[in-house]
């Protein structure tokens, strides 16, 4: 390293007296503690799925998550991509782990338990992105612990779109596929077993200014009305927009602890740090909700029509779509997550009303009264970055036979004049008959 002409050396901040905080930050403990403030779980979804013959529930009202690795999926060119995967051990469809992980649907207000463990190469964690519990249940190693085995406990309080992912060595484990979507539904979503497994369903919104969506109920959240500030939808589509760097996946896919630093004897003095290449991400594969986007990097690719998510991966609900196929005069809800280390830009072929960002319905009083749902005209891009979610509501009386477009931007150079670069464009069939 060249010395500065000025002779100025800027010292690192001292670690004296903070050895524990310093060490926990990057080498958190691996533990399997009991859950503090443990309550009795009340989540009805596992039992409902069992009643449909989708699995066998080991612990009542409890999801059994396992994180595993060494699974192979296929990229756009037929080449294998090694991934890690998460699955619900009680459910046949997700037992072995899927990419992305099984969708968890949870009614608002239930006590949610997820017994979680790493099947191979622990430790891991699960962070419930957008859900805000105590640090022990937040699934972040340096603010609690890595596991081991642990029962995460939450009581989701806001209806909307979330996701869950492993927060251990997140740069690797999230990229490798350890994540799934999480939907918080109205409190009574599973109250009636005859309707719980299909559509219409309801989600949170404040839509007094958008009378084109019938069935919206305002009311008062404090009244206990489970439908206060919700709107029904007839179709639901989920777009989990992801990218993968085959070099990362295939060269280091089986080393779950890649370049993970370690405390030795004297924190701050003899710590074991590595050189690696996790600063250098160059995706060459793209996926929409697990469906590979065809064609080489940079070349437009269209995913097939009529892709649906089976009920065994969707809380027992039949009919979740990826490619949209709906009827005129019906309400369609699209949930779109950027799970990509690239940024992205979604363009719908129809007018949409954005009713929520990040699991917070716009305009719902009292806490979200400072915002409002808003219309985005057809053809107008909505641009956002990794981990953000939009809920878009659509209803049209006109037939549509078109595509929604997801353009992925290299995050290196966005907003830099002459340097913005679209690395992949994916199209999603969007048909309204």
């Amino acid at each position, binding site marked *: 390293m060249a010395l500065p002409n000025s002779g*100025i050396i800027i010292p690192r901040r001292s670690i004296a007296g903070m050895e524990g905080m310093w060490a926990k930050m990057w080498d958190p403990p691996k533990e399997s503690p009991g859950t503090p403030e443990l309550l009795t779980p009340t989540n009805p979804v596992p039992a409902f799925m069992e009643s449909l013959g989708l699995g066998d529930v080991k612990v009542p009202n409890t999801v059994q998550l396992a994180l595993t690795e060494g699974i192979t999926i296929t990229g756009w060119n037929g080449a294998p991509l090694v991934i890690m995967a998460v699955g619900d051990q009680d459910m046949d469809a997700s037992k072995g782990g899927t990419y992305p992980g099984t969708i968890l649907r949870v009614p608002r207000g239930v006590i949610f338990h997820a017994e979680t463990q790493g099947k191979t190469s622990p430790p891991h964690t699960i962070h419930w992105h957008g859900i805000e519990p105590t640090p*022990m249940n937040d699934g972040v190693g340096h*603010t609690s612990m890595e596991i081991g085995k642990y029962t995460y406990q939450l009581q989701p309080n806001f209806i909307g779109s979330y996701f869950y992912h492993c927060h251990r060595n997140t740069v690797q484990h999230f990229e490798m596929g350890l994540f799934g979507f999480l939907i918080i539904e109205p409190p009574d979503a599973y109250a009636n077993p005859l309707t719980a497994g299909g559509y219409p369903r309801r989600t949170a919104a404040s839509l007094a200014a958008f009378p084109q969506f019938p069935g919206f109920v305002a009311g008062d959240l404090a009244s206990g009305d489970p439908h206060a500030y919700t709107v029904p939808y007839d179709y639901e589509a989920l777009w989990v927009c992801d990218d993968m760097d085959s070099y990362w996946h295939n060269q280091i896919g089986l080393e779950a602890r890649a370049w993970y630093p370690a405390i030795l004897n004297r924190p701050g003095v003899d*710590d074991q740090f590595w050189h690696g290449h996790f600063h*250098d991400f160059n995706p060459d594969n793209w996926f929409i909700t697990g469906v590979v986007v065809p064609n080489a990097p940079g070349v437009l690719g269209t995913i097939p029509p009529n892709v649906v998510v089976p009920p065994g991966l969707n809380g027992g609900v039949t009919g979740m779509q990826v490619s949209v196929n709906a009827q005129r005069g019906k309400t369609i809800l699209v949930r779109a997550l950027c799970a990509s280390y690239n940024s992205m830009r979604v363009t719908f072929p129809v007018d949409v009303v954005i009713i929520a960002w990040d699991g917070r319905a716009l305009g719902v009083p009292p806490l979200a009264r400072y915002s409002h749902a808003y219309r985005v005209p057809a053809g107008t891009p909505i641009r956002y970055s990794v981990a953000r979610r939009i809920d878009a509501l659509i209803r049209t009386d006109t037939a549509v036979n078109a595509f929604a477009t997801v353009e992925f931007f290299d995050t290196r150079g966005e907003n830099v004049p002459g340097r913005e670069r679209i690395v992949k464009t994916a199209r999603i069939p969007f048909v309204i008959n």
Partner: protein
Amino acid sequence: MKRRDFIKYGVSGLATLVVGSKMPWLMANPAYAAVQTQTLNFTITDAVKEMVTHEPGNNLATCYFWIYKSNAPNFPADCPGPQIYTTVGDTINISITNDLDEDHAFFIPGMYNSGPIAPGATVTGTFRVTRAGSYLYYDNLNAPVNRVMGLHGAFIVMPANLRGTRARGGNRLTPYSLPTPNVQQLFNDFGRAAWWPGLAWEQGDAAATPPTLPFRQYVWLLHQASPVLFEEVGNFTPGADYPAAAFMDAFIGETDRPGLPPLIATNTDPRMAFPLPFGPGIAINNAFNKKPHFFTICGQSGHFSHNHPAITPMLRVGEPCLARVMNAGLWTHSMHLHGNHFFIACVNGRVQSNLLWVDTFTSKSMDIYDMVIPFMRPPDVPNTRGIGRADPGLPAGLGATWPPQQEFAMYQPATGTFKQSFLNPLVNVDIHQRQSPLVYAMHDHTEPSQTAQGGNYNCGSISGITIIGDRNTPGWKDFPRDEDFDMMLTFGNGAPVTKPGGGNDPPLV
């Protein structure tokens, strides 16, 4: 650990300059260790900074930077330059000397432009601050090279009516000269509306320990650093500008795909060397490419930004605060807060009409946004209240889940986990960490930035919020704090700034 050692060597506030005299609230805030001045007297020079990680052999990793250094007495050099706080209506005198080999400048968009300052020359000027908000100051020459090399800092303008305790018409103070109705409503509601019990943003609490300051605000200035490229720029032909296009090619790192420069596998981890079923294993190679491999918030990474009370808000439920996020680099960051959703109040100078309430927001190169963190009780801790309802606690027999007293009693790592002390290997310290107060992360979800030197997860662009108590639950104004956290919180706010570390460590034993 003796408390006096901690004061001497431990954390300290951020290097901050206050221009003018209209901000007694800030001068009173030891977190900023503010130096008050009427003139911004800067030298443009270079420095080598010790970064978050260690190199093999356990020397500290370093990076070369260009910096704006304040010439105020005993003022520490750092990258980025000092945080500057001003007030609308202030007139600022400026004097900038260029000690480097090529032309440099000092630029605040819409406010001041020094123009090129020749090597060895000094430029003086005056400008008036007219609009409240968050700004970057930076060197706009040979863009973006000079800025990305480190010549940047945060420039904060507060509205002028801060002397009173209330603005007119019953409205509370906001960070803006012309707030939108929704921004005004949010700031009016804090501390008044049933759903935001606690303090208003403009209210402090002198009786708290440490005192809660009014107008709580934090800067999260994001940057990326490439030691290989920055050294190359530093060693470039004296007097000549390093070509900006070549700089961006290397730093933004177009791709390693065919036809373009190859990825250099930088890897010293012996676990990587063995063959894998799907590939040959990765050759061990100690060389880095020119892409950034340090990612900083206010010049700090990992532990140093997360456990830092002048960067990470450490406040109580009911003590809302403002965070000003700005990106001086060339990479996009997607900043995610745990524990609380936050309101987006202002984006690139536009005070927002529709206040999105989000858990993640996008920071592209040169983006500036303000977020308001309500510091509400984390809403998905089990409760019976439902949204917007008072919390009666849990049904009889279930105990209380808030505050989480069982969680407060847990230690991870467990008590009795001994390591050698940083200052003296003959002294053992217990590195146990109590699950109190409640620590949450705030980090970039574009995860390559969560690393240092290409690995070493959680040594990157991360800060957080820490909930140190609950103003709204009787008897729990303060959650338990162990000694190390308490010293960090107390003295981290209060130590006089002499160096970023509050003073060099003594030679290690």
